[in-house]
């Protein structure tokens, strides 16, 4: 059992990223405020970024620039991938904010339940 705990401690970035991922998912699924849902998405995506970056990291590793020293260097590929991931995440955020703005102008609220109520009320008229 101690070995399992030790493994968890050594791999703490992965543990944190999994915890963050599920916090994000929980926020998305339980909150009715559209902004909070969006924040949940950002938390979740940050968790995956953390996991990739941790996968490429070597503790005490050098910057991956070619040099004569034989020091271990970190894997640059996950970091490069996560640049793409961050760009994607920003686009999603921007698009979602535009949609929230349009919904706010239309319904005067940013709460999903409230919007559903207003919409159904509107249909009965």
């Amino acid at each position, binding site marked *: 059992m101690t070995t399992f705990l030790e493994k968890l401690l050594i791999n703490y970035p992965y543990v944190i990223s999994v915890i963050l991922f599920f916090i994000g998912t929980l926020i998305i699924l339980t909150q009715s405020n559209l902004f909070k849902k969006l924040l949940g998405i950002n938390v979740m*995506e940050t968790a995956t970024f953390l*996991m990739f970056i941790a996968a490429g990291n070597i503790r005490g590793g050098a910057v991956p620039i070619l040099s004569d020293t034989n020091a271990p260097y970190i894997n640059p590929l996950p970091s490069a991938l996560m640049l793409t991931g961050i760009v994607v995440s920003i686009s999603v955020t921007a698009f979602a904010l535009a949609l929230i703005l349009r919904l706010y102008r239309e319904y005067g609220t940013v709460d999903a339940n409230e919007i559903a109520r207003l*919409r159904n009320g509107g249909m009965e008229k």
Partner: protein
Amino acid sequence: MMTSWTTHLPVFVVILPLFVGFILPTLARRLRLVENLVIAVEVISFVMAAALAVLLFKQNGSPIPYAMGGWPAPWGIRIIADNLGVLFLLVIAIVGLPIALYTKGNLREEVGGRSRTARFYALYLLLMGALAGMAVTNDLFNVFVLVEVATLSACGLVSAHRNPRAAEAAFNYLILATLGSGLVMGSIGFLYITTGHLNMEFAARELAQVWQHSPHVVWMAASFMLTGFGVKAAMFPLHVWLPDAHSMAPTPGSAVLSGLAVKGYLICLLKILYNVFGQTLMRHFTMHHVLTAAGIAAILAGSILALRQDELKRRLAYSTVAQVGYIILGFGFVNQRGLAGSLFYLASHALIKSTLFLTAGAIISATGKTKVSELAGVGRKMPLTMGAFTVASLGLVGIPLFSGFVGKWHLLLGSFESGNFAAAAVILAGSVFCAAYLFPILRNAYFQETPGENWQDPGMAQRAAFVLLSAAIIFFGILPTPLLTLAQRAAADLLFLQ
């Protein structure tokens, strides 16, 4: 001997719609030019897909690789136009052209003014490019990026409708789809950590050797992948976003979302399941049972929910949930017949569902009525539109001589081969349900009192789109051999039978 222009075909198919898509918003003041450009892109894509198919048949199905920038495989990105990819490219091209024709001069009512229409086209071409990319990609991270491009442009297409409910549907779609891509990205992360490769072939080779060292991580990767793509492709219990998004989108948007976008995610899922995890691991994690069970649940639940809808587009959207069930069911059989049937059904459903959505949209915009029960006598007033709707309905039910039949037949053969008789019964029951929710529309349209109102078939471009789509449905029903051969070879590739 390959000439120089054919060498670059696998990548041109992807970048042509992407590049043209980005310049369209700047041409918003010349809308005619924009429309013609989109149609031209679709025609060229069709020619390129056909050329790739001819090349592939000449080589007896051995894949056409392309190294991006000339870098060899584990370092550079290699894309591959194999049987599966070319099959999907053909489907995209055959469905994309009629949808582009349908939109010609027909978006003002649903989308709005010139700049909004131009942006709609930009998103449409982006989605087309992303789907073509999914067809040829052979790299895990490319899958993620293309999936994100497709998701964002698909959400944009939904929110392009002027109705504020479309924005709400698009937001829900965006949130759930992003949750799905988060899961997919997490899964890709696990795979990269265990294998150290992003190229699918290399990852698969490595995974086969090392998965026993960390079975839980690989299992987690597999389940994240299945759930992530399950949300995006509306696998039954995860379909909640689909009815709203697909029924609220502007008509051509609904057609392309239901017909193609969902299929793109299914193709990605198929590639990753069979090419990266492989059938041994799939069986080890009993993923084929999960797929079969999800397929059965989707067929039954989707059909029953579709029966209860009175709004025409919502009924068609729920029908998509049921039809995705058929495709997933085929993925779960893990044999050549079942997979080939599933792929053929995927192609046939892309044709049929886009026909149904386009004709439904034409009917709704001509009559102003959205409910199934109000559409009495449309058949006589709009013969061509309703004719295409009828052909597509017969195809979806699976009447012989229409393309749906061939797919369902091979799915049935596949289910017998895997010894899953419950699935066979559900395939047949699904057809009956399908008749139950589509034939009342036809009966209403043809055999009821015709109202005196002045409903008419839409313009020339739209009629051409309907004729093309119906012709394709009947053509693949009578002469399924070319597409079916492609599907069978793709299935053999996926199962590594040679």
